[in-house]
């Protein structure tokens, strides 16, 4: 072991930067970080998993190493270490794309070699982080924030031993326990930002803003990627953190690029509070920078055409309007209506007749107007529709129509404010209202049973963005404003009207609904993020309703929402609260192992019950009502 008094100044500094992001290019945050580290005079070895385009990395990094495994583990650092020669006084830094930065100067990282043999930037006194595996947020290994070792330490083999051992054991906590282990071996260790100086045990996760205030140049991405109800319980308000990061000059474009591909979209929307209540009064839209807009609207309910056109009128400047409908008679009527409407307007108007399909507006959009989406003529495409929903009550149909249209095109000022968002944020891909919950049983069931199909389709299209577990972030209702570039992955696929038919249900479920739920991940795959929008009036209606309902729904269980949710998830499906369901819930909560063992039997019983019930119904229908009396 080295003698502290003889410790020389560190001569050379090496960093191993782990890139876990998959997909096409290198996210902007990683590129920025790698450049900054090199500018600080540190040699950077990048170890990466499944990036398909490496050209940018080749230019950026001093050295490039392929990761030994698909998912990140401390072994990645071991693999990279093999190619690095270290002298005793050199310094080795383990870092990666688990953090955003640098935000502000990086001087704080110039810790002299005299004091410590190993140090981490921020202490996590808990030594671990909570895992929410059942909710889709298990504690996984992720690249380290910034941990530095003296060459002596690395050369002694202890670092590699630790990384190897950690990989076999508790990978998720390896970073947080490293210093304790080194200290136990007699090395001098420390933290630049010890937890004692902050009001929590895990400042990187819980005190991101205080860390920035204290001069820490990084923000742990965990503040945007953790299980939202947990962050809620800790009163970590992501929207404020975003504000603090960007106020300090970190480009928001880079921030989103660092999060959007690797975070389930609805979780990101929640954690970063990516919902805007747009103003109907002031405008934040620059008329001198017009955007070329295509409106694609499917109209099968002609009575709704007038309102639709009034809404389109709210868009500034000329727009090109493409209306699809399923038969010639309607098309002729629409054409006449459009002729009158388009008098004196600059844009192009086109009516297209499309085959009636189960894909409805989605098929007309992705198949019937594919040329428009792929044309490169448009900065934005607005997707609207008007259809008669025969089964819905008048109130439901009206709420649906008003919710969709007013939250996108409430007034001319409102629409301009919405376009202003796209003007200011070049990586903003999609804007649409949040999931409806008034009048619709969407909550808790947003995938509508299509998640497995979504996973398959993502694989087929090469989309690697993680999907939300319970409900996806999606433009339920099928109206949105998007950049065509954000829709490209979906639009380029050669869909046909036949893909929406019943015959293809085995493959796609219901393709229209599936596409609706995949536009956000597909955009995220290309680095485009989504925001939700509400008008002030809809915001009031929706928040008061949600608040009241949440108050009722959370009233029969104890603790914070995160605990209440976990209890119900552990209990499993409540069904209709029958005795069997209650028994199953009891077993699942209190005897999870037994529940696992019993699961096949339960499924069998459930199926046989289904078969029995069906045969009973069949027999009854044959025997008729007289039979029912006998039974």
């Amino acid at each position, binding site marked *: 072991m080295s003698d502290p008094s003889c410790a020389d100044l560190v001569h050379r500094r090496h960093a191993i930067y782990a890139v876990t992001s998959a997909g096409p290019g290198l996210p902007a945050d990683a590129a920025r970080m790698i450049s900054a580290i090199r500018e600080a005079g540190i040699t950077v070895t990048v170890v990466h998993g499944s990036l398909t385009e490496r050209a940018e990395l080749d230019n950026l990094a001093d050295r490039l190493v392929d990761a030994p495994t698909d998912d990140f583990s401390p072994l990645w650092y071991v693999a990279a270490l093999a190619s690095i020669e270290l002298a005793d006084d050199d310094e080795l830094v383990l870092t990666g794309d688990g953090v955003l930065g640098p935000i502000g100067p990086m001087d704080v990282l110039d810790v002299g070699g005299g004091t410590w043999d190993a140090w981490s930037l921020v202490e996590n006194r808990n030594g671990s982080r909570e895992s929410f595996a059942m909710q889709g947020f298990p504690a996984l290994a992720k690249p380290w924030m910034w941990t530095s070792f003296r060459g002596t330490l690395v050369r002694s083999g202890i670092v590699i031993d630790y990384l190897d051992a950690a990989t076999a054991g508790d990978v998720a906590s390896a970073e947080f326990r490293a210093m304790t282990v080194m200290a136990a071996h007699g090395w001098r260790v420390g933290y630049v930002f010890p937890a004692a100086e902050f*009001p*929590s045990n895990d400042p990187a996760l*819980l*005190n991101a803003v205080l860390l920035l205030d204290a001069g820490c140049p990084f923000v742990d991405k965990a503040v945007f990627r953790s299980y939202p*109800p947990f962050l*809620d*319980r800790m*009163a970590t*308000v*992501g929207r404020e953190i975003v504000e603090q990061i960007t106020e300090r000059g970190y480009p928001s474009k880079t921030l989103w690029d660092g999060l959007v591909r690797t975070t389930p979209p*609805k979780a990101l929307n929640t954690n970063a509070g*990516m*919902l*805007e*209540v747009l103003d109907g009064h002031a405008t934040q839209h620059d008329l001198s920078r017009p955007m070329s807009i295509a409106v694609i609207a499917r109209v099968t309910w002609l009575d709704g055409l007038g309102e639709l056109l009034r809404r389109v009128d709210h868009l500034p400047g000329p727009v090109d309007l493409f209306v699809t409908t399923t038969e010639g008679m309607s098309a002729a009527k629409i054409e006449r209506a459009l002729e009158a409407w388009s008098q004196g307007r600059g844009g192009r108007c086109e009516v297209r007749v499309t085959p009636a399909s189960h894909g409805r507006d989605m098929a007309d959009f992705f198949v019937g107007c594919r040329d428009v989406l792929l044309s490169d003529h448009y900065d934005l495409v607005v997707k609207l529709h008007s259809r008669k929903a025969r089964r819905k*009550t*008048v*109130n*439901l149909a009206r*709420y*649906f129509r008003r919710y969709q249209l007013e939250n996108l095109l409430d007034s001319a000022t409102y629409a301009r404010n919405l376009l202003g968002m796209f003007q200011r944020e070049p990586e903003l891909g999609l804007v649409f209202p949040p*999931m409806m919950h008034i*009048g619709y*049983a969407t909550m*808790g*069931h947003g995938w509508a049973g299509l998640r497995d199909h979504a996973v398959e389709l993502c694989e087929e299209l090469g989309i690697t963005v993680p999907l939300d577990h*319970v409900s996806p972030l999606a433009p339920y209702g099928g109206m949105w404003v998007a950049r065509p570039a954000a829709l490209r992955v979906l639009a380029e696929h050669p869909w046909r009207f036949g893909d929406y038919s019943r015959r293809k249900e085995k493959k796609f479920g219901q393709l229209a609904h599936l596409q609706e739920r995949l536009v956000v991940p597909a955009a995220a795959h290309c680095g485009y993020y989504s925001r*939700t929008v509400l008008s*002030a*009036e809809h*915001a*009031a*209606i929706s*928040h*008061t*309703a*949600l608040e*009241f*309902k*949440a*108050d*009722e*729904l*959370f*009233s*029969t*269980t*104890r*603790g914070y*929402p995160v605990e*209440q949710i976990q*209890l119900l998830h*552990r*209990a499993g499906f*409540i*069904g*209709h*609260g029958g*005795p069997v369901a209650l028994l199953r819930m009891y077993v699942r909560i*209190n005897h999870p192992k037994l529940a696992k063992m019993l699961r096949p039997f339960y499924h069998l019983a459930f199926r046989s019950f289904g078969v029995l019930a069906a045969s009973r119904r069949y027999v009854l229908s044959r025997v008729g009502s007289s039979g029912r009396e006998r039974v």
Partner: protein
Amino acid sequence: MKTAELVANPARPTSLFPEGGKRLLIYVVYDPRGDVEEYIPYALERFRPHCTHILAISNGALTDSGRERLAPVVDQLIERENRGFDIWGYKTGLDAMADRISEFDEVLLVNDTWFGPVRPFGPLFERMERRPLHFWGMTDHMRVEPHPFTQTGYLPYHLQSYWVAVRRDMIESEEWKAYWRDLPEMNSYSDAVVKHEGVFTEHFTDLGFSGEVAFPTLTDKIENHAVLYAEQLLDAGCPTLKRRPFFQWPPYLDALAVIGRWTLDAVQRYGYPVEFVYQDLARNVQPKVVNADAAMLNVLPDTVVGYDSSSPLRTLVIAHIFYTEMTDEILARADHLPGHYDLIVTTSDQERARQVEEVIARRSARGATAVRVVPSNDGRDQSAFLIGCREELLSDDYDLVVKIHSKKTPQDGYNVGNHFRKQQFDNLLRTDGYAANVVALFQREPGLGLAFPPMIHLGYPTMGHAWWANKPAFVARCAELGIRVPVDDTSPLAPYGSMYFARPEALRALVEHEWRYEDFSGEYDDGGLAHVLERMPAYAAGERGFHTRTIVNKDYFASSYTALDFNFDQMSMTLPDNTMTQIELLKRMGFIERGSLRDFISVFSRMYRPALEPRALAWHDRMARVLRGARRTIAVPTRLGRR
């Protein structure tokens, strides 16, 4: 308008309402306070041109002010015991007029369950007078099978009983007299529907009397149109707006996509004084229910919208400052208010007062300032406000009072405390523009009593539990203070954090009471007076007819909404059907606690054998004791053996 169900066959001869005919109005009032809400004289006044004689029946005794309110607008008033619902009120009226009934060409049986006339009565009466018929109603309800109340048979198509008019031919018939003579007793709302409202129309149509409905059902679905399609009915010209869409359980209206706020928009569009609606709801409906049913939340921008600087409100800021290091921050917040304001700072001791005075001296005042040392810190900001500033609050010197204090909440941890503080200040006094917009709300709505941020929930387990241990004491205090506004079931609508904008007049029920510092002594805890009073302002304001709004800025809204949305989605994952059903199911199951065997025995009993619960639990506890004992007996020899 005729509907198939209203056509009698064979029909008796019908007649028109004669030119210059006479109409008797029997109007039944039910007000639990006996005060008579303001929307009632407004309606009765507008009946006057169409009615010769107006007889009001009050189900239950009236107060003097109630009587005074009715006196100028009715010809006759009868107060009766509150029995038999509005139906027996009608009967009382008919009986009272028995001698004179032949004077009238039409009798109107109307109750007070609606606001109006939102659209004018004139065209309605004009139209209906020209129709040859025996009876007519304002709105109807489709046949429902099975009967939703009895679950057997069917609920016939019927005219809704809040408004039925009957012509002379029918009134003079034996069948009519027999109907009222033999009217069965009615002890519940269900009775009123099953025994009268549901059967009246069919009964008389079967007897050959021809009916009509002024505003038939609007869609082809079986729904209660008067409640669910209130706005569309107004658009169709219907003068009456049922009160029900604003007090039904929000998850029910929500499931049916009924948006009360849009109905209120229509009310304003048609020129009806919407303040009558707010006033009635404030006094008679649970405040949190109103907040949801009428979407009484305002997302306010930072740019000024609608503030009228030419009619400023006389404003008083009352700030309780305990953590004096926050003085500058608090005063800077207050300075966001538009125009002049007076300031009273209350604090706990001389030293603190001196520190505050120093800060005040450094800043430029925007009106009179005073620093007051309160004799006791018991009850903290609550007692300092209610006792320390009682005189100012009871004076008529101010239109608006802003209550703020140096909030730190150190006990809840840094993040939570920090967020709570921001949730309060940023939603009350965020910027100059924002604060002006809050004041503008009070300028626009003279009936607005209170504005404060919605219930804190990030970092706090308030959802579903915000009464904590305070409800029993709250109910008792309300009774003591004469606050009769219905109390919310699950969580109260309250300024959690105790900071708000208020009209002093709206707080009168709280302030008039002579509180003493001793009342606040003891632990500063749930169930204690300070926490009870924290929950009371909206109810106190409601008692005086003032309504409450919640206010938020856009950034807080974004964080709050996305979190609620995410949590709700997660929580619903394992539950069936729509939210209303989910809530009903969970409520039937009752409190789940930790999900232990004992908890599930409770749940099972509650759902299937409520009577069995105590016995089942006792059995469980006995078994658990036995098992524990057995385990111990086995454990001892094993340990000995090991040794």
